[in-house]
């Protein structure tokens, strides 16, 4: 029963088409946009396309969790703050007390393992905190996650005494700036994370459970699903993933910046999910779609930078393109297209 029509009704198809269109525009305006070069000294591939995927890493990783949050009919607006938290705690363990170790250099005060694991644990616990509020105490997700959205940056500030620490520690800088198999390391992390999440979601029954709770929590409970537990797992996972994204971000800039790290990430992540075809009302979700969505967002940003459009107008430009993509995916638009096509077909039949 897979007809041509059903392919065009598929939101993922539209997302891919949108991405290709945006790239085509870029290619026409600037043929050099697609060139990819191998740099002998750094052993890394360079080019706009590589850059797009590299820079989309944080949002893609967060959006993996956000996809399931949204599939449950919720939202998590604390992810941006958690990015700041992860960076702050990583730098805290790298530098500890800046009065004792005043100059940033290629060293770490605490073992590297703690630098990585502690921020991830803290972010995971914060995710669990969200999950408990929403799953157990039945708070509205936007309110529950608002708490950490606000408090998270405060905690990040406290961790570094309100200072912006920087580091020159090579292993830490490798996370965001290094490369493996000629690819920027964030891309490798993203691939590993996406594959792990997809295996977890689709090779166990977890994905179906999430969709089921998202569509009808009452019926899911009567069917024997423990919806509060599922909700807690999803928010905890999202916290953990935000932590990974936070490490990548802070490693890219070799420092932590509690005020600016991860700002608007929650919006970009939600947008990536929606662009990927998952409905905000919950239910069926598509992780692949989310990856495409995240890449679209980054493509637009990169394009804007590439063509030297002033940074003031970036937001408006981004909004315009996203508006078009979302309207095309909307249900009334789909229906309108369908009736238009039907009418055309009918007219054609009459003429024939």
């Amino acid at each position: 029963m897979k007809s041509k029509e059903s392919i065009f009704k598929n939101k993922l198809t539209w997302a891919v088409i949108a991405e290709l269109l945006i790239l085509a525009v870029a290619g026409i305006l600037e043929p050099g946009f697609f060139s990819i070069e191998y740099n002998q000294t750094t052993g890394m591939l360079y080019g706009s396309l590589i850059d797009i995927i590299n820079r989309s890493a944080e949002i893609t990783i967060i959006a993996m969790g956000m996809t399931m949050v949204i599939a449950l009919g919720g939202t998590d607006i604390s992810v941006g703050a958690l990015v700041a938290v992860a960076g702050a705690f990583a730098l805290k363990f790298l530098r500890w007390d800046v009065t004792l170790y005043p100059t940033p250099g290629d060293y770490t005060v605490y073992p590297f393992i703690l630098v990585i694991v502690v921020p991830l644990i803290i972010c995971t616990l914060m995710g669990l905190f969200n999950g408990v509020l929403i799953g157990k105490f039945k708070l509205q997700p936007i309110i529950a996650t608002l708490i950490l959205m606000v408090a998270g940056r405060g905690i990040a500030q406290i961790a570094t005494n309100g200072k912006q620490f920087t580091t020159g520690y090579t292993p830490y800088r490798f996370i965001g700036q290094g490369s493996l198999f000629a690819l920027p390391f964030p891309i490798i992390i993203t691939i590993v994370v996406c594959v792990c999440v997809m295996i977890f979601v689709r090779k166990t029954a977890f994905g179906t459970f999430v969709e089921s709770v998202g569509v009808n929590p009452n019926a899911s409970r009567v069917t024997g699903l423990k919806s509060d537990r599922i909700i807690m797992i999803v928010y905890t996972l999202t916290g953990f993933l935000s932590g990974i994204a936070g490490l990548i971000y802070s490693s890219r800039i070799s420092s932590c910046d509690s005020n600016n790290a991860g700002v608007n990430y929650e919006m970009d992540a939600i947008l990536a999910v929606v662009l990927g075809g998952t409905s905000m009302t919950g239910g069926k979700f598509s992780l692949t779609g989310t990856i495409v969505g995240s890449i679209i967002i980054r493509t637009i940003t990169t394009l804007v930078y590439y063509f030297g459009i002033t940074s003031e107008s970036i937001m408006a430009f981004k909004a315009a393109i996203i508006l078009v993509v979302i309207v095309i995916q909307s249900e009334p638009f789909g229906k309108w297209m369908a009736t238009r096509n039907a009418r055309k077909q009918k007219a054609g039949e009459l003429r024939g």
Partner: protein
Amino acid sequence: MDRDVILTMRGIEIQFPGVKALDGVDFTLRRGEVHALLGENGAGKSTLIKCLTGVNKMDAGKIELEGKEIRPTDPKNAMDMGISTVFQEINLCDNLSVAENIFIGRQPMKRGQIDWKEINRRSNELLERFHVHIDVTRPLSQFSTAIQQMVSIARAVDVDAKVLILDEPTSSLDSDEVKKLFDVMRDLKAQGIGIIFITHFLDQVFEMSDRMTVLRNGKLVGIYNANEITKLELVSSMIGKDLDQIFDLKRAAQKEDAAMMLEANHIGVPGKVEDISFGQKKGELLGFAGLLGSGRTETAEMIFGVTKMANGDLKIAGIPVKIGEPMDAINHKIAFCPEDRKRDGIIGDLTIRENIALALQARRGMMKPMSRKEQDELADKYIKLLAIATPDAEKKIKELSGGNQQKVILARWMATDPDLLILDEPTRGIDVGAKAEIQRLMLQMCEEGMSIIFISSELDEIIRCSNRIIVMRDGKKAGELNGENCTQADIMRIIAGEKVGETA
């Protein structure tokens, strides 16, 4: 033509996907009359009201208000024409003042500003008429449910109502409050307003109404004058007998020496059901009869752990068990097809395959996923076994008709291979053919040793299928009958509250 008639509905037809919700229903309302609209759930009462208030569009039929044909487009439009509705749940704004609630959306203005003095004065005046003396500037939430109910009625009649629809107005009131409400209804009657009164409480129907219209399965059964019909006759006309439905069904033979499956000792939840005790043998089909709200569903939900049992204890196969969550019940091999299929049964956006596999998957746990092949086989097996009408298992369940949705839910639980299956109104709102198939299936499963609790409002199918019947009334077990040799009249007598010798 009767001069006193204020509202006539003639030949109303409404078609819902797969079901004719209303089939040529007539209804007339006179000036100054309280007219009860009766029928079991799904009979079409609320559809008729929705049709009158413009929520549902009718496919055929005519509505006349004071001799003029009308076609209400939405509740606001109906209200402008003089048809006001007070819904079961009070839909007022708790945080606004009483006066604001009465005038919301139509505040009197003075020099471009809301005239608060006028609002408060008129609100006071209006409530005086209902003998309600309160400070109308205080927020609504500070008053009792009864007062809130009065306020919503006051609002409804202040818009110059000719017809007032009261949908289950007494369900959240205590007896004193009901008395107050009835006084108000009598006042309104005296003012010449026609009142349509929907309720499940038969005593109140007889106390208040002048005439009654009874619907069943979307069809008009009869119009009666209140002083010309007995309660028993009314119950029988509401529940009806499917005369055209003669099935070659044979009740599963009950083995005398069968082991005990389920024992319930004085189970209850305060305020819902109290002190229910019964036993059920293996392979026995135990029917639960009673009107809606009599505690049948609540009992089932307790056994399955949807509602937490407050008192009493359960034994399964002689062993005491604790069931606090549906998962616990599932682990004890109990299954439950809920009454409200849409709310508690189907996962609308998921496919038939996913819906069927869900309960089994939930029992297995997350980490032991069923392979796609296993799911496909399961789905195909039950689609064939239950004759589910669908092109394939990948269709979304919400796109199926009610009867087929019910079969999918049944399949979901059959797949878990339960020892005890609880079916709450499994045949409601589905067509006659699917009904018969589901009944046949139940009996067959009992024959194979499954125990079934069967809840239904339709007495004939309860009698036809059950080995034993428990009759519920007002949250209590009112009687127990042997399925082999009881009649509908026996059950109705217990439902209507007449004392009869109970056979165990």
